[in-house]
Protein backbone atom coordinates (compact mmCIF):
# COMPACT_ATOMS: atom_id res chain seq x y z
CA UNK A 1 0.00 0.00 0.00
CA UNK A 2 1.46 3.28 -1.15
CA UNK A 3 1.16 6.36 1.03
CA UNK A 4 1.15 9.95 -0.10
CA UNK A 5 1.84 13.02 1.98
CA UNK A 6 -0.25 15.26 -0.27
CA UNK A 7 -2.37 13.14 -2.62
CA UNK A 8 -4.16 16.24 -3.96
CA UNK A 9 -1.04 17.65 -5.60
CA UNK A 10 1.12 14.55 -6.00
CA UNK A 11 -1.57 12.71 -7.98
CA UNK A 12 -3.18 15.72 -9.63
CA UNK A 13 -4.52 15.41 -13.17
CA UNK A 14 -1.89 16.98 -15.43
CA UNK A 15 -4.33 19.48 -17.01
CA UNK A 16 -5.26 20.76 -13.57
CA UNK A 17 -1.59 20.82 -12.62
CA UNK A 18 -0.89 22.99 -15.65
CA UNK A 19 -3.42 25.58 -14.56
CA UNK A 20 -1.96 25.58 -11.03
CA UNK A 21 1.50 26.09 -12.53
CA UNK A 22 0.29 28.87 -14.84
CA UNK A 23 -1.37 30.76 -12.01
CA UNK A 24 1.66 30.38 -9.74
CA UNK A 25 4.04 31.44 -12.51
CA UNK A 26 2.06 34.64 -13.08
CA UNK A 27 2.25 35.42 -9.35
CA UNK A 28 5.97 34.71 -9.31
CA UNK A 29 6.60 36.94 -12.34
CA UNK A 30 4.66 39.76 -10.70
CA UNK A 31 6.73 39.40 -7.56
CA UNK A 32 10.11 39.37 -9.26
CA UNK A 33 9.23 42.10 -11.77
CA UNK A 34 8.19 44.54 -9.10
CA UNK A 35 10.60 43.53 -6.32
CA UNK A 36 13.87 42.46 -7.94
CA UNK A 37 15.59 45.09 -10.14
CA UNK A 38 17.76 42.38 -11.72
CA UNK A 39 14.76 40.45 -13.07
CA UNK A 40 12.91 43.61 -14.10
CA UNK A 41 15.81 44.83 -16.23
CA UNK A 42 16.40 41.36 -17.70
CA UNK A 43 12.74 41.17 -18.69
CA UNK A 44 12.73 44.71 -20.07
CA UNK A 45 15.80 43.93 -22.16
CA UNK A 46 13.90 40.97 -23.60
CA UNK A 47 10.90 43.25 -24.30
CA UNK A 48 8.77 41.51 -21.67
CA UNK A 49 6.42 42.84 -19.03
CA UNK A 50 4.45 40.89 -16.41
CA UNK A 51 1.50 40.77 -18.84
CA UNK A 52 3.63 38.89 -21.41
CA UNK A 53 3.47 35.75 -19.27
CA UNK A 54 -0.07 34.36 -19.35
CA UNK A 55 0.49 30.65 -18.92
CA UNK A 56 3.23 28.15 -18.16
CA UNK A 57 3.73 27.75 -21.93
CA UNK A 58 5.07 31.33 -22.07
CA UNK A 59 7.94 30.37 -19.79
CA UNK A 60 10.35 29.85 -22.69
CA UNK A 61 10.17 33.58 -23.48
CA UNK A 62 11.91 34.38 -20.18
CA UNK A 63 15.68 34.85 -19.87
CA UNK A 64 17.77 32.30 -17.96
CA UNK A 65 19.35 32.82 -14.56
CA UNK A 66 22.75 31.33 -13.68
CA UNK A 67 24.94 30.79 -10.64
CA UNK A 68 26.99 33.75 -11.90
CA UNK A 69 23.94 36.00 -11.54
CA UNK A 70 23.66 34.92 -7.91
CA UNK A 71 27.34 35.68 -7.42
CA UNK A 72 27.09 39.08 -9.11
CA UNK A 73 24.26 39.97 -6.77
CA UNK A 74 25.96 38.60 -3.66
CA UNK A 75 24.76 38.33 -0.99
CA UNK A 76 21.09 39.38 -1.04
CA UNK A 77 20.63 41.19 -4.38
CA UNK A 78 18.13 38.71 -5.85
CA UNK A 79 15.92 38.47 -2.78
CA UNK A 80 12.34 39.50 -3.51
CA UNK A 81 11.32 40.44 0.03
CA UNK A 82 12.70 42.87 2.63
CA UNK A 83 15.27 41.22 4.94
CA UNK A 84 12.79 41.55 7.80
CA UNK A 85 10.77 38.79 6.09
CA UNK A 86 13.77 36.44 5.83
CA UNK A 87 13.92 33.92 8.67
CA UNK A 88 16.77 31.71 7.46
CA UNK A 89 19.93 31.96 5.37
CA UNK A 90 21.86 29.07 3.86
CA UNK A 91 24.92 29.18 1.63
CA UNK A 92 26.85 26.86 -0.63
CA UNK A 93 30.23 27.21 -2.27
CA UNK A 94 30.40 29.38 -5.36
CA UNK A 95 32.72 29.39 -8.35
CA UNK A 96 35.18 31.99 -7.12
CA UNK A 97 35.17 31.71 -3.40
CA UNK A 98 32.01 33.75 -2.84
CA UNK A 99 29.26 31.50 -1.56
CA UNK A 100 25.83 31.30 -3.14
CA UNK A 101 23.40 32.65 -0.57
CA UNK A 102 19.76 31.61 -0.30
CA UNK A 103 17.14 33.22 1.94
CA UNK A 104 13.86 31.71 3.15
CA UNK A 105 10.72 33.41 4.39
CA UNK A 106 8.51 31.69 6.95
CA UNK A 107 6.35 30.44 4.06
CA UNK A 108 9.43 29.15 2.24
CA UNK A 109 10.40 27.10 5.29
CA UNK A 110 6.87 25.75 5.34
CA UNK A 111 7.07 24.85 1.61
CA UNK A 112 10.41 23.21 2.20
CA UNK A 113 9.01 21.16 5.10
CA UNK A 114 6.08 20.17 2.86
CA UNK A 115 8.24 18.91 -0.02
CA UNK A 116 10.56 17.13 2.40
CA UNK A 117 7.53 15.51 4.04
CA UNK A 118 6.55 14.24 0.57
CA UNK A 119 10.11 12.99 0.05
CA UNK A 120 10.19 11.05 3.30
CA UNK A 121 6.71 9.66 2.67
CA UNK A 122 7.94 8.55 -0.77
CA UNK A 123 10.58 6.52 1.07
CA UNK A 124 7.87 4.89 3.19
CA UNK A 125 8.50 6.92 6.34
CA UNK A 126 5.77 8.05 8.74
CA UNK A 127 5.19 9.21 12.32
CA UNK A 128 6.31 5.85 13.70
CA UNK A 129 9.79 6.10 12.21
CA UNK A 130 13.12 7.12 13.72
CA UNK A 131 15.02 9.18 11.18
CA UNK A 132 18.75 9.49 11.68
CA UNK A 133 20.01 12.55 9.84
CA UNK A 134 23.67 12.10 9.04
CA UNK A 135 23.76 14.94 6.53
CA UNK A 136 25.75 17.94 7.69
CA UNK A 137 23.83 20.58 9.63
CA UNK A 138 24.76 24.22 9.21
CA UNK A 139 24.97 26.39 6.11
CA UNK A 140 24.58 23.26 3.96
CA UNK A 141 20.86 22.66 3.31
CA UNK A 142 21.03 18.85 3.68
CA UNK A 143 20.75 18.49 7.46
CA UNK A 144 18.07 21.08 8.23
CA UNK A 145 16.04 20.24 5.12
CA UNK A 146 15.65 16.62 6.20
CA UNK A 147 15.14 17.72 9.78
CA UNK A 148 12.10 19.91 9.08
CA UNK A 149 10.60 17.25 6.79
CA UNK A 150 11.09 14.60 9.46
CA UNK A 151 9.38 16.71 12.10
CA UNK A 152 6.57 17.58 9.69
CA UNK A 153 5.62 13.93 9.22
CA UNK A 154 5.84 13.45 12.98
CA UNK A 155 8.76 11.03 12.96
CA UNK A 156 11.32 10.97 15.76
CA UNK A 157 14.20 12.94 14.32
CA UNK A 158 17.78 12.18 15.39
CA UNK A 159 19.86 15.22 14.35
CA UNK A 160 23.25 13.55 14.64
CA UNK A 161 24.75 15.44 11.63
CA UNK A 162 27.66 14.06 9.58
CA UNK A 163 30.76 12.23 10.75
CA UNK A 164 31.61 10.49 14.05
CA UNK A 165 30.89 7.04 12.69
CA UNK A 166 31.05 5.18 16.00
CA UNK A 167 28.39 7.45 17.47
CA UNK A 168 26.27 6.97 14.35
CA UNK A 169 26.37 3.21 14.91
CA UNK A 170 25.63 3.48 18.59
CA UNK A 171 22.57 5.69 18.08
CA UNK A 172 21.41 3.56 15.17
CA UNK A 173 21.38 0.50 17.37
CA UNK A 174 20.29 2.00 20.70
CA UNK A 175 17.53 4.28 19.34
CA UNK A 176 16.34 1.80 16.74
CA UNK A 177 16.81 4.02 13.70
CA UNK A 178 14.51 2.98 10.86
CA UNK A 179 15.38 5.57 8.21
CA UNK A 180 18.90 6.80 7.45
CA UNK A 181 19.51 10.09 5.63
CA UNK A 182 23.00 10.87 4.31
CA UNK A 183 25.10 10.89 1.15
CA UNK A 184 25.19 7.50 -0.63
CA UNK A 185 28.95 7.24 -0.17
CA UNK A 186 28.59 7.76 3.57
CA UNK A 187 25.84 5.12 3.62
CA UNK A 188 28.29 2.64 2.13
CA UNK A 189 30.95 3.71 4.58
CA UNK A 190 28.52 3.18 7.47
CA UNK A 191 27.52 -0.22 6.05
CA UNK A 192 31.13 -1.33 6.19
CA UNK A 193 31.64 0.16 9.63
CA UNK A 194 28.61 -1.81 10.87
CA UNK A 195 30.06 -4.97 9.41
CA UNK A 196 33.47 -4.35 10.98
CA UNK A 197 32.06 -3.44 14.39
CA UNK A 198 30.42 -6.84 14.63
CA UNK A 199 26.92 -5.36 14.98
CA UNK A 200 24.47 -7.74 13.36
CA UNK A 201 21.82 -6.34 11.03
CA UNK A 202 19.33 -8.18 13.28
CA UNK A 203 20.23 -5.71 16.06
CA UNK A 204 19.21 -2.84 13.79
CA UNK A 205 15.80 -1.75 12.57
CA UNK A 206 16.82 0.05 9.41
CA UNK A 207 14.31 -0.27 6.60
CA UNK A 208 15.01 2.64 4.25
CA UNK A 209 17.54 5.32 3.40
CA UNK A 210 17.16 8.66 1.63
CA UNK A 211 20.41 9.38 -0.12
CA UNK A 212 21.44 12.36 -2.22
CA UNK A 213 23.70 15.42 -2.60
CA UNK A 214 26.07 13.54 -4.90
CA UNK A 215 25.80 11.35 -8.01
CA UNK A 216 25.59 7.58 -7.55
CA UNK A 217 24.90 4.60 -9.74
CA UNK A 218 22.55 1.65 -9.77
CA UNK A 219 25.50 -0.49 -8.70
CA UNK A 220 26.02 1.62 -5.61
CA UNK A 221 22.33 1.38 -4.88
CA UNK A 222 22.39 -2.42 -5.07
CA UNK A 223 25.44 -2.54 -2.85
CA UNK A 224 23.84 -0.31 -0.20
CA UNK A 225 20.57 -2.25 -0.35
CA UNK A 226 22.35 -5.60 -0.03
CA UNK A 227 24.70 -4.57 2.73
CA UNK A 228 22.10 -2.78 4.86
CA UNK A 229 19.02 -4.75 3.78
CA UNK A 230 17.11 -1.54 3.17
CA UNK A 231 15.33 0.26 0.36
CA UNK A 232 17.69 2.98 -0.93
CA UNK A 233 15.83 6.03 -2.23
CA UNK A 234 17.52 8.66 -4.40
CA UNK A 235 16.66 12.25 -3.57
CA UNK A 236 17.60 15.40 -5.49
CA UNK A 237 17.81 19.06 -4.67
CA UNK A 238 20.01 22.11 -4.85
CA UNK A 239 20.20 24.91 -2.36
CA UNK A 240 19.45 27.64 -4.93
CA UNK A 241 16.07 26.06 -5.69
CA UNK A 242 15.29 25.13 -2.05
CA UNK A 243 17.70 22.38 -0.95
CA UNK A 244 16.73 18.70 -0.75
CA UNK A 245 13.06 18.18 -1.58
CA UNK A 246 13.10 19.24 -5.21
CA UNK A 247 12.62 15.64 -6.37
CA UNK A 248 12.56 12.16 -4.88
CA UNK A 249 12.15 8.58 -5.96
CA UNK A 250 9.16 6.62 -4.74
CA UNK A 251 9.23 2.94 -3.76
CA UNK A 252 9.00 2.03 -7.47
CA UNK A 253 12.52 3.45 -7.90
CA UNK A 254 11.98 4.38 -11.53
CA UNK A 255 12.89 8.07 -11.70
CA UNK A 256 12.62 10.94 -9.24
CA UNK A 257 9.26 12.72 -8.92
CA UNK A 258 9.76 16.45 -9.18
CA UNK A 259 7.52 18.53 -6.92
CA UNK A 260 6.23 20.32 -9.99
CA UNK A 261 3.62 22.39 -8.22
CA UNK A 262 6.54 24.25 -6.59
CA UNK A 263 9.45 23.82 -9.03
CA UNK A 264 8.81 23.86 -12.76
CA UNK A 265 11.37 21.82 -14.73
CA UNK A 266 12.53 22.25 -18.32
CA UNK A 267 15.21 20.45 -20.28
CA UNK A 268 17.32 22.60 -22.60
CA UNK A 269 20.21 22.09 -24.94
CA UNK A 270 23.15 23.60 -22.97
CA UNK A 271 24.73 24.86 -26.23
CA UNK A 272 21.79 26.40 -28.11
CA UNK A 273 19.72 27.02 -24.92
CA UNK A 274 16.61 25.84 -26.83
CA UNK A 275 14.05 23.72 -24.96
CA UNK A 276 14.31 20.04 -25.87
CA UNK A 277 11.37 17.72 -26.55
CA UNK A 278 10.03 15.31 -23.95
CA UNK A 279 12.42 12.44 -23.26
CA UNK A 280 15.54 14.15 -24.66
CA UNK A 281 18.62 14.43 -22.45
CA UNK A 282 19.80 17.95 -21.71
CA UNK A 283 20.37 20.48 -18.96
CA UNK A 284 17.78 20.71 -16.22
CA UNK A 285 16.36 24.21 -15.65
CA UNK A 286 14.07 25.18 -12.76
CA UNK A 287 11.62 28.00 -12.19
CA UNK A 288 10.35 28.26 -8.64
CA UNK A 289 6.57 28.74 -8.54
CA UNK A 290 5.95 29.52 -4.87
CA UNK A 291 9.19 30.72 -3.36
CA UNK A 292 9.14 34.18 -1.77
CA UNK A 293 12.64 34.86 -0.46
CA UNK A 294 14.67 33.91 -3.50
CA UNK A 295 12.44 33.16 -6.48
CA UNK A 296 14.42 31.84 -9.43
CA UNK A 297 13.41 32.20 -13.05
CA UNK A 298 14.71 29.53 -15.43
CA UNK A 299 17.69 28.73 -13.26
CA UNK A 300 20.30 26.62 -15.03
CA UNK A 301 21.25 23.74 -12.72
CA UNK A 302 24.00 22.42 -15.05
CA UNK A 303 22.79 18.91 -14.22
CA UNK A 304 22.16 16.69 -17.23
CA UNK A 305 19.09 14.46 -17.21
CA UNK A 306 15.81 13.72 -18.99
CA UNK A 307 12.13 13.85 -18.04
CA UNK A 308 9.41 11.22 -18.15
CA UNK A 309 5.81 12.49 -18.01
CA UNK A 310 4.10 9.08 -17.83
CA UNK A 311 2.04 8.39 -14.75
CA UNK A 312 4.04 6.29 -12.29
CA UNK A 313 2.76 2.94 -11.04
CA UNK A 314 2.87 4.42 -7.52
CA UNK A 315 -0.06 6.64 -8.56
CA UNK A 316 1.84 9.91 -8.65
CA UNK A 317 1.41 12.06 -11.76
CA UNK A 318 4.36 14.33 -11.02
CA UNK A 319 6.97 14.19 -13.78
CA UNK A 320 9.97 11.97 -13.15
CA UNK A 321 13.58 12.93 -13.83
CA UNK A 322 16.32 10.37 -14.38
CA UNK A 323 19.29 10.12 -12.08
CA UNK A 324 21.60 12.95 -13.16
CA UNK A 325 24.01 11.77 -15.82
CA UNK A 326 26.65 14.42 -15.38
CA UNK A 327 27.16 18.16 -15.55
CA UNK A 328 27.34 20.71 -18.32
CA UNK A 329 30.04 22.56 -16.39
CA UNK A 330 33.13 21.40 -14.51
CA UNK A 331 31.69 21.32 -11.00
CA UNK A 332 32.76 18.36 -8.88
CA UNK A 333 30.83 17.00 -5.94
CA UNK A 334 33.18 15.84 -3.21
CA UNK A 335 31.63 14.28 -0.11
CA UNK A 336 28.47 16.25 -0.94
CA UNK A 337 30.38 19.55 -1.19
CA UNK A 338 30.44 21.45 -4.49
CA UNK A 339 33.87 22.21 -5.84
CA UNK A 340 34.81 24.17 -8.93
CA UNK A 341 38.36 23.84 -10.28
CA UNK A 342 38.40 27.64 -10.54
CA UNK A 343 38.32 27.84 -6.72
CA UNK A 344 41.59 25.91 -6.65
CA UNK A 345 43.04 28.08 -9.40
CA UNK A 346 42.32 31.23 -7.39
CA UNK A 347 44.30 29.84 -4.45
CA UNK A 348 47.21 28.83 -6.69
CA UNK A 349 47.43 32.26 -8.32
CA UNK A 350 48.10 33.78 -4.90
CA UNK A 351 51.14 31.59 -4.32
CA UNK A 352 54.09 32.64 -6.44
CA UNK A 353 56.26 29.60 -5.66
CA UNK A 354 53.88 27.41 -7.63
CA UNK A 355 53.21 27.24 -11.36
CA UNK A 356 49.56 27.66 -12.23
CA UNK A 357 49.65 24.21 -13.82
CA UNK A 358 47.78 21.74 -11.73
CA UNK A 359 45.90 18.47 -11.85
CA UNK A 360 43.12 17.35 -9.54
CA UNK A 361 42.78 13.64 -8.91
CA UNK A 362 39.51 12.51 -7.39
CA UNK A 363 39.15 8.99 -6.10
CA UNK A 364 36.98 7.04 -3.75
CA UNK A 365 38.86 5.06 -1.15
CA UNK A 366 36.87 3.03 1.41
CA UNK A 367 33.76 4.74 0.06
CA UNK A 368 35.00 8.20 0.93
CA UNK A 369 35.97 10.69 -1.73
CA UNK A 370 39.60 11.74 -1.73
CA UNK A 371 41.14 14.74 -3.44
CA UNK A 372 44.72 15.12 -4.49
CA UNK A 373 46.11 18.27 -6.04
CA UNK A 374 49.31 17.94 -8.02
CA UNK A 375 51.20 21.18 -8.60
CA UNK A 376 54.52 21.99 -10.16
CA UNK A 377 57.23 23.70 -8.16
CA UNK A 378 58.32 26.90 -9.88
CA UNK A 379 61.94 26.85 -11.03
CA UNK A 380 62.54 30.44 -9.94
CA UNK A 381 61.51 29.82 -6.37
CA UNK A 382 62.98 26.41 -5.86
CA UNK A 383 65.57 26.33 -3.11
CA UNK A 384 67.73 23.70 -1.61
CA UNK A 385 65.57 23.23 1.48
CA UNK A 386 63.25 20.41 2.41
CA UNK A 387 61.64 22.56 5.09
CA UNK A 388 60.82 25.26 2.57
CA UNK A 389 59.12 22.76 0.27
CA UNK A 390 57.20 21.24 3.14
CA UNK A 391 55.99 24.56 4.45
CA UNK A 392 54.93 25.47 0.94
CA UNK A 393 52.86 22.29 0.86
CA UNK A 394 51.30 23.05 4.23
CA UNK A 395 50.50 26.62 3.24
CA UNK A 396 48.79 25.37 0.10
CA UNK A 397 46.80 22.78 2.02
CA UNK A 398 45.65 25.36 4.55
CA UNK A 399 44.70 27.94 1.93
CA UNK A 400 42.82 25.31 -0.06
CA UNK A 401 40.95 24.10 2.97
CA UNK A 402 39.81 27.57 3.93
CA UNK A 403 38.79 28.38 0.35
CA UNK A 404 36.91 25.16 -0.38
CA UNK A 405 36.04 23.65 2.99
CA UNK A 406 37.64 20.42 1.84
CA UNK A 407 40.77 18.64 2.97
CA UNK A 408 42.97 18.35 -0.11
CA UNK A 409 46.21 16.44 -0.23
CA UNK A 410 48.86 18.45 -2.05
CA UNK A 411 51.61 16.71 -3.98
CA UNK A 412 54.52 18.69 -5.40
CA UNK A 413 55.58 17.38 -8.76
CA UNK A 414 58.41 18.09 -11.16
CA UNK A 415 57.90 20.78 -13.76
CA UNK A 416 56.43 19.87 -17.13
CA UNK A 417 54.98 16.66 -15.75
CA UNK A 418 51.49 18.10 -16.00
CA UNK A 419 50.24 17.98 -19.52
CA UNK A 420 50.04 21.31 -21.38
CA UNK A 421 47.36 21.59 -23.94
CA UNK A 422 46.40 24.13 -26.54
CA UNK A 423 42.72 23.87 -25.86
CA UNK A 424 40.95 23.17 -22.61
CA UNK A 425 43.43 21.40 -20.38
CA UNK A 426 42.35 18.19 -18.71
CA UNK A 427 42.60 19.43 -15.15
CA UNK A 428 40.49 16.84 -13.42
CA UNK A 429 40.94 13.11 -13.33
CA UNK A 430 37.94 11.54 -11.66
CA UNK A 431 38.64 7.90 -10.88
CA UNK A 432 35.43 7.37 -8.95
CA UNK A 433 33.09 4.76 -10.34
CA UNK A 434 29.49 5.81 -10.05
Amino acid sequence: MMDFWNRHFECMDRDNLKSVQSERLRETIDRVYFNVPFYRSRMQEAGLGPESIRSIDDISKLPFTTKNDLRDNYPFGLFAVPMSEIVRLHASSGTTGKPTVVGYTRNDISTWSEVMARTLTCAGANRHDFIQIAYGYGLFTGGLGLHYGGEKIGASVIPVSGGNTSRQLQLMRDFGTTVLACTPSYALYLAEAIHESGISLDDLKLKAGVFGAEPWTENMRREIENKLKIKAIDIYGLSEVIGPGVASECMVQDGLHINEDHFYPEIIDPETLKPLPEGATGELVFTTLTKEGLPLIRYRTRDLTKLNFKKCSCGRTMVRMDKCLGRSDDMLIIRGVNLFPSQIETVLLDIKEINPHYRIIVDRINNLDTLELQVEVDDEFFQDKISQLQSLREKLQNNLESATGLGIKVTLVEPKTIERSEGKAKRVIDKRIY
Partner: protein
Amino acid sequence: MIINQLSVFLENKSGRIAEVLEVLGNENIRITALSIADTSEFGLLRLIVSDPEKARAILKEHHFTVNISDVISVMAPDEAKYYAKILKILSDLEISVEYTYAFSTGKKSIIILRCTDNESAITALKDHEMELLKASDLYKI
Protein backbone atom coordinates in the same frame (compact mmCIF):
# COMPACT_ATOMS: atom_id res chain seq x y z
CA MET B 1 85.86 28.79 -0.18
CA ILE B 2 82.21 28.73 -1.15
CA ILE B 3 81.36 25.72 -3.24
CA ASN B 4 78.48 25.61 -5.67
CA GLN B 5 76.30 22.62 -5.13
CA LEU B 6 73.49 21.54 -7.45
CA SER B 7 70.11 20.65 -5.95
CA VAL B 8 67.59 18.83 -8.09
CA PHE B 9 63.94 18.42 -7.11
CA LEU B 10 62.73 14.89 -7.74
CA GLU B 11 59.42 13.18 -7.26
CA ASN B 12 59.64 9.80 -5.62
CA LYS B 13 59.47 7.85 -8.83
CA SER B 14 61.76 5.01 -9.72
CA GLY B 15 64.39 5.77 -12.33
CA ARG B 16 64.58 9.52 -11.74
CA ILE B 17 68.05 9.57 -10.16
CA ALA B 18 69.37 7.39 -12.97
CA GLU B 19 67.98 9.88 -15.50
CA VAL B 20 69.80 12.79 -13.85
CA LEU B 21 73.06 10.89 -13.79
CA GLU B 22 72.67 9.74 -17.36
CA VAL B 23 72.09 13.28 -18.58
CA LEU B 24 75.19 14.52 -16.75
CA GLY B 25 77.26 11.53 -17.81
CA ASN B 26 76.46 12.09 -21.47
CA GLU B 27 77.93 15.58 -21.18
CA ASN B 28 81.06 14.39 -19.36
CA ILE B 29 80.20 16.16 -16.14
CA ARG B 30 82.12 14.61 -13.23
CA ILE B 31 80.38 14.07 -9.93
CA THR B 32 82.50 14.39 -6.79
CA ALA B 33 79.81 13.97 -4.21
CA LEU B 34 76.13 13.06 -4.12
CA SER B 35 73.54 12.86 -1.39
CA ILE B 36 69.77 12.60 -1.20
CA ALA B 37 67.34 14.11 1.24
CA ASP B 38 63.93 12.54 0.94
CA THR B 39 60.44 12.85 2.32
CA SER B 40 57.61 10.44 1.69
CA GLU B 41 56.64 12.36 -1.42
CA PHE B 42 59.63 14.04 -2.95
CA GLY B 43 63.37 14.19 -2.67
CA LEU B 44 66.26 16.56 -3.16
CA LEU B 45 69.31 15.27 -4.95
CA ARG B 46 72.43 17.24 -4.02
CA LEU B 47 75.48 17.05 -6.23
CA ILE B 48 78.94 18.51 -6.33
CA VAL B 49 80.04 18.43 -9.93
CA SER B 50 82.95 19.59 -12.06
CA ASP B 51 81.04 22.34 -13.89
CA PRO B 52 77.95 23.41 -11.91
CA GLU B 53 76.77 26.12 -14.34
CA LYS B 54 76.97 23.82 -17.33
CA ALA B 55 75.33 21.01 -15.38
CA ARG B 56 72.49 23.30 -14.36
CA ALA B 57 71.90 24.39 -17.97
CA ILE B 58 71.85 20.80 -19.20
CA LEU B 59 69.44 19.66 -16.50
CA LYS B 60 67.13 22.61 -17.18
CA GLU B 61 67.08 21.65 -20.83
CA HIS B 62 65.84 18.28 -19.66
CA HIS B 63 63.09 19.93 -17.58
CA PHE B 64 64.51 19.28 -14.16
CA THR B 65 64.00 21.83 -11.40
CA VAL B 66 67.54 22.79 -10.43
CA ASN B 67 69.02 25.27 -8.05
CA ILE B 68 72.60 26.14 -7.16
CA SER B 69 73.27 26.60 -3.50
CA ASP B 70 76.34 27.44 -1.47
CA VAL B 71 78.06 24.92 0.74
CA ILE B 72 81.47 24.72 2.35
CA SER B 73 83.85 21.80 2.49
CA VAL B 74 86.43 20.78 5.07
CA MET B 75 89.13 18.13 4.83
CA ALA B 76 89.93 16.38 8.10
CA PRO B 77 91.56 13.17 9.27
CA ASP B 78 89.23 10.24 8.82
CA GLU B 79 88.12 9.99 12.44
CA ALA B 80 84.78 10.80 14.02
CA LYS B 81 86.31 13.07 16.64
CA TYR B 82 87.42 15.54 13.97
CA TYR B 83 83.91 15.69 12.49
CA ALA B 84 82.60 16.24 16.01
CA LYS B 85 85.10 19.00 16.62
CA ILE B 86 84.04 20.85 13.47
CA LEU B 87 80.41 20.71 14.46
CA LYS B 88 81.25 21.82 18.00
CA ILE B 89 83.12 24.89 16.71
CA LEU B 90 80.03 25.91 14.77
CA SER B 91 77.52 25.20 17.52
CA ASP B 92 79.59 27.16 20.05
CA LEU B 93 79.14 30.17 17.81
CA GLU B 94 75.46 29.37 17.33
CA ILE B 95 75.92 28.78 13.64
CA SER B 96 73.31 26.21 12.63
CA VAL B 97 74.10 23.42 10.25
CA GLU B 98 71.19 22.88 7.89
CA TYR B 99 72.64 19.63 6.65
CA THR B 100 75.94 17.91 6.25
CA TYR B 101 77.32 14.83 4.57
CA ALA B 102 80.77 13.35 4.28
CA PHE B 103 82.78 10.79 2.46
CA SER B 104 86.12 9.18 3.08
CA THR B 105 89.08 9.07 0.74
CA GLY B 106 91.07 6.73 2.94
CA LYS B 107 93.16 8.65 5.45
CA LYS B 108 91.23 11.83 4.98
CA SER B 109 87.58 12.54 4.89
CA ILE B 110 85.79 15.29 3.05
CA ILE B 111 82.97 16.98 4.90
CA ILE B 112 80.34 19.10 3.18
CA LEU B 113 78.34 21.56 5.29
CA ARG B 114 75.49 23.89 4.61
CA CYS B 115 75.22 26.48 7.38
CA THR B 116 72.74 29.25 8.03
CA ASP B 117 75.71 31.58 7.70
CA ASN B 118 78.39 30.05 5.53
CA GLU B 119 80.72 33.08 5.68
CA SER B 120 80.89 33.10 9.48
CA ALA B 121 81.38 29.35 9.42
CA ILE B 122 84.37 29.75 7.09
CA THR B 123 85.92 32.38 9.36
CA ALA B 124 85.35 30.28 12.47
CA LEU B 125 86.78 27.12 10.94
CA LYS B 126 89.81 29.01 9.62
CA ASP B 127 90.39 30.47 13.10
CA HIS B 128 90.58 26.90 14.38
CA GLU B 129 93.00 26.03 11.57
CA MET B 130 90.71 23.67 9.81
CA GLU B 131 91.56 22.81 6.23
CA LEU B 132 88.90 24.35 4.01
CA LEU B 133 88.69 23.18 0.44
CA LYS B 134 88.16 25.28 -2.65
CA ALA B 135 85.89 24.11 -5.43
CA SER B 136 88.89 23.38 -7.62
CA ASP B 137 90.36 21.14 -4.86
CA LEU B 138 87.18 19.13 -4.68
CA TYR B 139 86.90 18.52 -8.38
CA LYS B 140 90.40 17.01 -8.37
CA ILE B 141 89.45 14.29 -5.95
